[in-house]
């Protein structure tokens, strides 16, 4: 498929740009990494030695080249604080984040799509107005506040779920899902609203189209018209929002990760920032950026799957 091929080349270019920015970010910091390594009481001599050791004396381009070569081999350097390889730390924190994102977005879809469909089918019905009001209410509450309410009732009172902690998949699928349920739900309860609103408004527009009238003239039942005719052409906005949400959650679920003590990328990044562990921050930011770009690449491919007109030459829907 030429369409995907072209998009993929684009992806490579964007990721290269991301590595430049990530590297430059560290390089442009007012303080040298050597100070962080050496600690507050280091002498000028120590600093110079460490700078030599880290190769900070080389020109920026050379250091970028070395760093990029390392990245391509999967070597993100070592933590300035603990000495642990950054790649290893990131890899160990990735499963919790990926699982959290997948589960949270799954719940988001499970709420947003049915509600969006039904609201659009019966615009201004009681159900529609109730869901809109509920949605606006939920988005105006931060997800961690919701999380605390959920923990209080479902974990502390009913004891259905653990309040904090992460059980890895190796501990069994059920404990694993149980440990992620509350954080995922508290994220989804906020995320579904935007997705639903976007889907609803696009569906309302689609349902005005002639081809929906023709589908009704065929005598098809309402659920077939909605699911088979109206849903797919209405998914563009929702797909875009979905992609952005996934990208955001990969590094941005920090508060929820912190609250539930999940060992995710967000927490790793936060700890790195506090400890001035620049290589760790650099590794995390690189991962988040690459994930973001990759997700948006998949969204672009998704447009092509949704609409045959996109595949063969860039028809943009208004």
């Amino acid at each position, binding site marked *: 498929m030429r369409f995907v091929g072209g998009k993929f080349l684009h992806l490579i270019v964007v990721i290269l740009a991301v590595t430049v920015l990530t590297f430059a970010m560290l390089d442009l910091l007012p303080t040298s990494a050597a100070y962080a390594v050496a600690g507050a009481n280091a002498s000028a001599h120590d600093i110079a030695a460490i700078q030599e050791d880290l190769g900070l004396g080389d020109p920026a381009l050379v250091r970028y080249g070395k760093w990029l070569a390392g990245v391509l081999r999967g070597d993100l350097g070592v933590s300035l604080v603990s000495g642990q390889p950054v790649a290893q730390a990131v890899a160990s924190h990735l499963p919790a984040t990926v699982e959290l994102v997948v589960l949270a977005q799954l719940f988001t879809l499970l709420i947003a799509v049915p509600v969006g469909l039904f609201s659009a089918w019966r615009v201004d019905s009681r159900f529609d107005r109730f869901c809109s009001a509920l949605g606006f209410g939920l988005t105006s509450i931060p997800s961690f506040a919701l999380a605390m309410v959920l923990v209080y009732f479902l974990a502390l009172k009913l004891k259905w779920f653990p309040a904090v902690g992460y059980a890895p998949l190796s501990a069994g699928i059920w404990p694993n899902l149980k440990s992620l349920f509350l954080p995922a739900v508290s994220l989804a309860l906020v995320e579904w609203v935007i997705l639903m609103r976007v889907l609803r408004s696009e569906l309302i527009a689609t349902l005005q189209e002639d081809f929906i009238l023709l589908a009704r003239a065929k005598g098809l039942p309402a659920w077939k018209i909605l699911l088979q005719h109206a849903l797919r*052409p209405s998914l563009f906005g929702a797909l875009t929002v979905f992609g952005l949400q996934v990208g955001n959650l990969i590094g941005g679920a920090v508060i929820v990760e912190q609250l539930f003590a999940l060992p995710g990328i967000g927490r790793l990044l936060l700890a790195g920032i506090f400890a001035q562990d620049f290589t760790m921050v650099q590794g995390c930011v690189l991962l988040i950026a690459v994930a973001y770009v990759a997700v948006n690449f998949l969204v672009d491919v998704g447009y092509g799957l949704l609409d045959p007109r996109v595949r063969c030459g860039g028809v943009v829907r208004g």
Partner: protein
Amino acid sequence: MVDRLSVHLPCGESIVRAVDEVSFTLERGQTLALVGESGCGKSMLCRAIMGLVPGRALLPAPGRIVFAGQDLGALEAGERAGLCGGRIGMVLQDPLSALNPVMKIGRQIAEPMRHHLGMTRVQARQRSIELLRAVGIAQAATRIDCYPHQLSGGMRQRVVIAIALACEPQLLIADEPTTALDVTVQAEILDLLADLQQERSMAMILVSHNLGVVAGRAHETAVMYAGRIVEQAPTGELFARMRMRYTRALFDAIPRLDDPAQATLTAIDGQSPDLAALPDGCSFAPRCAHAEARCTGEAPTLVSDGHARHRHACWFPCAVGPTA
């Protein structure tokens, strides 16, 4: 048969009388043409027959639609849906927007057959290919896997017709089937519809705003104005002796080949009336050059003029004579 059918659309405080006490009877194998300006209620009438009026629309008593002996208004929603697409087919005005852009045309044609006739996927596909051939699409076996955007406007309208014909309907409603098409394709599509109708002895309602489209293709022609039928006659009779000044005006609005070059196109003065606030009396009176006091005071009813099923609604009809 449509008997005193009205469609009223509440719109804020007022009520839009989109269709006002329209009655006609259509026999098997016959074509009825509905002609009138934009906004005169033609499309709403078609939708009312299909049961596809907007949710807020009212269909006041005693309006009835009787199809093959059944009063459609008395049917359950489910039974009604069984008629739509099954025994009544519909062709919409704009084939560019009438097909789902993200669904292969084969599936769109097969859909009503799978739904109403319970065909399997394979049977429906086979039949879809036959239908595509019947509506004059070459290489039907490969075209069936096309998306709508890969076809031209005329071909898409053929596909829409194939969909309407899929379940062998007894009534085909064609709502301005050629308005959105190239002039060169218009005649082809109209001839195709006429041929298919003859072959299958369907009844057909052909909607148009162009009297020229109707001539020679419809057995009977009804002229609509402001939600009402104002003149109705067998098509030949209508063209031979137009009684309504509105019909005459519509006829004069068709550009003619023997007009001198640069001739100004004839238009009907004024605008269609606001259907929410119809004037007392004849609704065409404000635009009629021959209106008299009685026309604005008292609404004319559709009466026979005593000549070959010709009916008209005018107090002072045109003199009977050869048309210009």
